[in-house]
């Protein structure tokens, strides 16, 4: 896949506030997107995914928004908790291609 990048490498957020993590992608053919969370010393953990036929998808305390017009993906975390401190990666794939391309990652730090 083509490059998938993140706008900001770090994000500091106050506990209890909402977090927004952004991702830009360049491959207009991408049709499937995933957000992963990677805590220190662990492998990436699946958070939520979205297909290109959707604009929004909600999970538990998380919402993913997809804007295909500007090729932008975001992850919103509601009521951020200390356990949300991690590196967050977006990843994308194209039709009939099971390979994922990963963005650079955003480090989220939650302040108590």
């Amino acid at each position, binding site marked *: 896949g083509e490059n998938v990048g993140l706008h900001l490498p770090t994000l500091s957020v106050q506990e209890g506030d909402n977090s927004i993590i952004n991702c830009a992608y360049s491959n207009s053919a991408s049709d499937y997107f995933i957000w992963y969370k990677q805590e220190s*010393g662990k*492998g990436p953990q699946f958070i939520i*995914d979205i297909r290109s036929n959707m604009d929004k998808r909600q999970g538990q305390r998380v919402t993913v928004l997809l804007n295909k017009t500007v090729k932008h993906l975001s992850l919103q975390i509601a009521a951020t908790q200390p356990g949300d401190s991690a590196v967050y990666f977006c990843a994308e794939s194209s039709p009939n291609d099971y390979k994922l391309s990963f963005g650079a990652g955003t480090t989220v730090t939650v302040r108590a």
Partner: protein
Amino acid sequence: SAVISQKPSRDICQRGTSLTIQCQVDSQVTMMFWYRQQPGQSLTLIATANQGSEATYESGFVIDKFPISRPNLTFSTLTVSNMSPEDSSIYLCSVGQGETQYFGPGTRLLVL
């Protein structure tokens, strides 16, 4: 999702030696992948491990350096050959379930 384990979890190796990393899944899966994550960086796909045939390598990765085995649908190995300090990374296996990939905990390799 599948439960994925990796061995070893970490290792310190001398340059010029080789290390074989094992990935075990608790259920049969068609797609298995190997990634490298250099310090502070994102994930880069090394290869797709194909059951019963040679792995499919991404640009910049070759079989002589990263030989891969996939003897069955629940197990794969990645060997990092003739190591140099530049090979110090986290090596991750993942399994594909549909278009989604789930990751193992990673193997943290330090080459001296």
